[in-house]
């Protein structure tokens, strides 16, 4: 009876051992990071505007892939989190927002809108602790924000930079650090982008002028 029990235990252990080995191997080979985050609504007075927002496939499906020396390949899927961040922040910044799925027939589609915002991701960089000789994972993101009239004329174009870091010291000694640390640094960077966009939008000179014109009617 005892022997039978032991053999059953061994059989049950096999898939577990396989998964453990696979996990260890994957940590050495490549790390895939997916960012799931619910961003808080901004605490600001919304502009009395109907804003359109267009997310290009480059932004929606953005994946950063990089091979870091002695750290394997990193794959950071940022697309969905970026969309979620921009949707949440724009919903709080404007009285109404409408998704503009395509840019063809720009004027026809956007007739009811006051303007259309098109965020573009221009650069994504990250560093791991072994590169900077610190205990931090760091993320830098550079966006270009584009504001168009409903007829497709450019109103303003400005850069939006974001930075996030996470300290490996904040994770337990036995915890698997790589994935959660990069996830946290990316979440901080996206939150930073959202915060800076929300507070800096009306400070951009050309946007400021446009807002003044819109107010004058």
């Amino acid at each position, binding site marked *: 009876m005892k022997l039978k029990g032991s053999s059953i235990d061994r059989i049950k252990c096999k898939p577990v051992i396989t998964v453990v080995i696979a996990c260890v191997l994957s940590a050495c080979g490549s790390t895939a990071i997916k960012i799931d985050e619910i*961003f*808080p*609504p*901004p*605490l*600001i*007075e919304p502009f009395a505007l109907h804003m359109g927002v267009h997310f290009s496939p480059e932004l929606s499906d953005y994946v950063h892939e990089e091979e870091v020396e002695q750290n394997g390949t990193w794959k950071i899927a940022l697309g969905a989190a970026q969309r979620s961040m921009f949707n949440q922040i724009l919903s709080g910044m404007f009285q109404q927002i409408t998704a503009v799925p395509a840019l063809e027939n720009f004027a026809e589609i956007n007739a009811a809108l006051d303007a259309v915002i098109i965020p573009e991701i221009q650069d994504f960089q990250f560093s791991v602790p072994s590169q900077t000789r*610190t205990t931090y994972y760091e993320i830098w993101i550079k966006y270009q924000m584009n504001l168009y009239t409903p007829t497709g004329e450019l109103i303003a174009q400005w850069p939006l930079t974001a*930075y996030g*870091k996470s*300290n490996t*010291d*904040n994770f337990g000694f036995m915890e698997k650090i790589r994935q959660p640390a990069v996830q946290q640094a990316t979440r*901080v960077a996206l*939150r*930073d982008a*959202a*915060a*800076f966009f*929300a*507070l800096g939008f009306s400070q951009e000179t050309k946007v400021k002028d446009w807002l003044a014109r819109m107010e004058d009617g």
Partner: protein
Amino acid sequence: MNIRWLMAPTILLLLPACVSTNIEQIRQANTGIAADESVVIMGRKNRSSISETEEDFVTCVNTKLANNSKGFGVVPQKTFTDALFPWFEPRTAPLNSSELPKMLREPLIAERLKEIGVHYIVWIQGSTDRVDQAGAMSCVATVGAAGCFGFLTWENDATYEASIWDVKTGTSAGNISSEANGTSFVTGVVVPIPIIARVQSAACTSLSSQLSAFIRNEA
């Protein structure tokens, strides 16, 4: 008998090494807090700073202050930053109390702070660092036997400063600094026996109890 042998190192593990703590306080204004009001403990996370306050230290102060609050509430940092997003993010948060009145003039911010009942914002800056270490230890394992031999020692220094801002008056109420240092040892005679100086924990305990007294305006 076997249990006794196992208990000996366990008891030694629980024996902490000595930690010396020093607390200093500067009061700039009278304080006081009502039972329906609360405090938020925030760790500084400036973009430019190379080091930032450890999250577990902020959590420790938060928990100990909540346990020792004698009535007032302690709002978790995440709840506070989410409720006031985007005003208290690393790049947008006020860096000193002189920026607070301008922020409080924003009706939405003032209203939200009133809603969540935050009377004091406590900013914590600092870290725990290893300042010295010496000794060596080597461990050997063979089939049927294993053991460690040697002696290790290291000194940790925890330096933290809490700045207390009064949200109602928009001014700084004062500062409390907490310094703790202690030396930890590991002696290895077959079994390694660590005697750890819980420096960060000592700094957390002294800072949180001083904070509680400061906020309640006790001597």
